[in-house]
């Protein structure tokens, strides 16, 4: 089945220690998104890639970076995690950026910062 995969499902890191979260997709979608979802809150878009074109949201902290080496993979790098970065990180994909296009989400990676 075509799907969006996130690894690991749970990640524990130390305060200030860089961490990378991974997302892969077999849907061959052009767009990949990263969302941050804090406990019992709505998901918040951090950034997205349309093909190789990176699009950052205005209020995304500089501490968050992303890489997309090919169509299938996208990484979220947190350079110096703080306690406030503990959250569920959701990857999503869509075929285009056309308005109304459905986004398909992975299962998420829950990040714990000690």
């Amino acid at each position, binding site marked *: 089945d075509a799907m969006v995969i996130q690894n690991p499902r749970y990640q524990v890191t130390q305060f200030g220690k860089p961490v990378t979260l991974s997302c892969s997709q077999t849907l061959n979608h052009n767009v990949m998104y990263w969302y941050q979802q804090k406990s019992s*809150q709505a998901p918040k878009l951090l950034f997205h890639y349309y093909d190789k074109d990176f699009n950052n949201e205005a209020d995304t902290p500089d501490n968050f970076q992303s890489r997309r080496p090919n169509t299938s993979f996208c990484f979220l790098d947190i350079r110096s995690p703080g306690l406030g970065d503990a959250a569920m990180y959701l990857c999503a994909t869509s075929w*285009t950026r056309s*308005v109304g296009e459905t986004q398909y989400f992975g299962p*998420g990676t829950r990040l714990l910062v000690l």
Partner: protein
Amino acid sequence: AQSVAQPEDQVNVAEGNPLTVKCTYSVSGNPYLFWYVQYPNRGLQFLLKYITGDNLVKGSYGFEAEFNKSQTSFHLKKPSALVSDSALYFCAVDGGGNKLTFGTGTQLKVEL
């Protein structure tokens, strides 16, 4: 700017009864509206969306949603609730460029 509001933090319903999860929206142009469901420690699953056309949209798992332009609402419904429907439900609006703005979520609890 676009926004959606989910006025109820939690909805409780007995199994077998109809359920409604409410959503109202505010957009400057045509509304493109979505419903997603999230089970504990899982990602969001797409249920249905309204783009244009019929005001009653049918989706996955027996869910449907009614688009009402005059009331700016997009309520999620199901004729007969199941215990397995218990989850967190998010309404979302596409504000352009496929950027979704989510509501705060409604926890649905279906009891035997």
